[in-house]
């Protein structure tokens, strides 16, 4: 392997480039027109053009990406996360072009992608899956209702083709079921073109704990610890840590056994994650799904292991035999995802231009980002600005370091969840390690963010500071020049007037 095409963008592209460099491999990045001057594109050895247009013609364009990889004489492709990373057709196309796909083998990729098949495989391997059933075609509402009652309410309706919370409904009683069924089917049809749904028992206030696994092509599987990702909004993680504050030695052993036997059963290769939901009522872990890719939160594992997961991915893809010591984490690591989003309005994305973007330099805090001052957070992509990952001797000092790093991070121009994260990390239940996937709702953190007021003292200070800087520049703000509310962000002339102290 000499030259690798990165079929991705942003922070993960930059992060992959870093490892390629260290291993003496050349990095070729496929960039859309908007991304041609991004930090990731600038860091690569070579940029190849995906052109303009929507995602289907750029980062999701299988044919074009394979063609670019061949034209630029790459011998491997790294898909990153998201986009085509778990798409079996893409992996297949890469292989058929005679290139190495840095990821799982085709069969493992296919199995991981099918909820039904992966659940079946896990059950056969002795891994608990959440009890549930798939309604047969044409099964009447009455029959579904009876089976749901047998399962016991509350139940959760999920889309067979689903993901991202679409087509999902929690149902607490028999009476609510018909309407919820119709709603979930409609949503699933709209989102995935497939109205099929299934029902499973709803676990109240579960914890999300996942196991990082890496497997070589010679039958060796290794566990690289767990990550707890219970802090979520909109069914997406925002804070992840390792080790999980929940697990005892006994629980950890059990969880690792589940993960290893599951991954072994499906013949998994390369890096992958087995996600579990922990039910506090039953003190049991239930298989959720396999993420057949490098994950957003992988740095947490890297910090407590000292390993480079991208390097391991490459070594496996080269056919190397891995030999890793038994899992022994070093200290604690926590990641916080800084997003361009507005917690007060239900975490709606807040695209726009970053008029300031600065991160602190602390030896114990890793910053993974793909943006800089002047970057545009586009409505086309995930509005992630940066991942801040702190590493410490223990959980309390790690929380303190992460919180401090967030307090020294300057991002202006878009609304961010920075202050939300700062508050969250100080919440007594977070500090105590009492986590659950409904943590944010249960503690009404969104509502608190919406109500948060600014101390009058702060306003006084700001008035003095702005006034004095204005006095230096011009006598006063011209009157009667109130600008329209929304027009300011994108106007280049305003940017030119951008004031500097």
């Amino acid at each position, binding site marked *: 392997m000499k030259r690798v095409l990165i079929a991705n963008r942003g922070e993960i592209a930059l992060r992959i480039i870093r490892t390629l460099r260290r291993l003496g491999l050349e990095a070729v990045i496929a960039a859309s027109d908007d991304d041609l001057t991004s930090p990731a594109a600038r860091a690569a050895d070579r940029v190849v053009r995906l052109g303009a247009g929507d995602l289907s013609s750029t980062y999701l364009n299988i044919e074009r990406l394979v063609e670019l990889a061949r034209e630029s004489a790459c011998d491997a492709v790294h898909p990153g996360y998201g986009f085509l990373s778990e798409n079996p057709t893409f992996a297949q196309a890469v292989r058929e072009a005679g290139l190495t796909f840095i990821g799982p083998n085709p069969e493992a990729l296919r199995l991981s992608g099918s909820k039904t098949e992966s659940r079946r495989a896990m059950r056969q391997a002795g891994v608990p899956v959440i009890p549930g059933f798939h309604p047969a075609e044409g099964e009447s509402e009455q029959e579904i209702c009876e089976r749901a009652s047998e399962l016991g309410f509350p139940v959760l309706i999920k889309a067979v083709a689903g993901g*991202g919370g*679409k087509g999902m409904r929690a149902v607490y009683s028999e009476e609510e079921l018909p309407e919820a069924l119709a709603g979930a089917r409609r949503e699933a049809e*709209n989102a995935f073109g497939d109205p099929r749904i299934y029902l499973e028992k709803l676990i109240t206030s579960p914890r999300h704990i996942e196991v990082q696994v890496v497997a070589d092509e010679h039958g060796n599987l290794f566990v690289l610890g767990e990550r707890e990702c219970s802090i979520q909004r909109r069914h997406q993680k925002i804070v992840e840590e390792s080790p999980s504050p929940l697990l005892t030695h006994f629980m950890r052993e059990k969880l690792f056994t589940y993960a290893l036997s599951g991954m072994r059963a499906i013949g998994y290769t390369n890096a992958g994650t087995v996600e579990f939901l922990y039910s506090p009522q039953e003190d049991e872990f239930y298989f959720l799904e396999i993420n057949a890719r490098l994950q957003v939160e992988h740095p947490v594992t890297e910090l407590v292991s000292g390993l480079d997961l991208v390097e391991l991915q490459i070594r496996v893809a080269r056919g190397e035999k891995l030999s890793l010591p038994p899992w022994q984490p070093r200290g604690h690591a926590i990641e916080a995802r800084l997003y361009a989003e*507005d917690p007060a*309005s239900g975490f*709606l*994305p*807040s*695209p726009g231009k970053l*008029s*300031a973007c*600065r991160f602190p330099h602390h030896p114990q805090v890793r910053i993974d980002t793909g943006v800089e001052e002047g970057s545009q957070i586009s*409505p*086309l*992509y*995930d509005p992630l600005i940066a991942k801040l990952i702190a590493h410490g001797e223990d959980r309390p000092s790690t929380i303190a370091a992460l919180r401090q790093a967030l*307090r*020294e991070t*300057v*991002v*202006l*121009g878009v*609304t*961010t969840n*920075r*202050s939300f994260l*700062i508050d969250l990390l100080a919440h007594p239940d977070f500090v105590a390690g009492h986590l659950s996937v409904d943590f944010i709702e249960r503690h009404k953190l969104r509502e608190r963010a*919406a109500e*948060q*007021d*600014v101390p*009058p*003292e*702060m*306003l*006084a*200070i*700001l*008035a*003095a*500071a*702005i*006034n*004095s*800087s*204005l006095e230096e520049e011009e006598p*006063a*703000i011209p*009157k009667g*020049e109130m*600008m329209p509310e*929304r027009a*300011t*962000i994108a*106007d280049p002339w*305003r940017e030119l007037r*951008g*004031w*500097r*102290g």
Partner: protein
Amino acid sequence: MARLRIRLEKPARTVEVEVAARTGGGWQVHLPDGDEVLVEELLSLEQGSFLVRLAGGRQLPITLVRQGDRWLVWTPDFDLVLRLEPFGEEGRVEPEEAREDAHGRVEAPMPGKVLELRVRVGDEVERGEVLMVLEAMKMEHQITSPLRGVVTELVAEEGISVELGDLLAEITPLNEE
């Protein structure tokens, strides 16, 4: 001495303060409730950053970025967007009024596509009721009514693209009994 009106964007709020330079340096800021804050020194650092020195030696870093008449403000624990207007006796606008106005206007919180309309013009809606579903950044977002009222305008139709700040709907408040 300068009398300044600070308009915060989120949460929407208006505060009027008086800033007076102190002999011997620094500023004295009077708040509406009669409180006073002493800013002893303002050290200008690079890139719009300042170090504010308060009484007792307390230090606070801030960063300011100006965008037209808006100020983007960074402080360690939160960020703000505000406007600052000088004011005298004339031209006083009651901030409450201005805010009421905006209440019935439902604007696109981000650029996206209208996926589904859940209401029609003339419908009565409750506060928090879903008016439409907007798709942006590959996710669906429910746009809800900010108040109880009647839908008097519904500009958006299904499938159309909207820009940040576009009017999606107008809700006229219902008189409460």
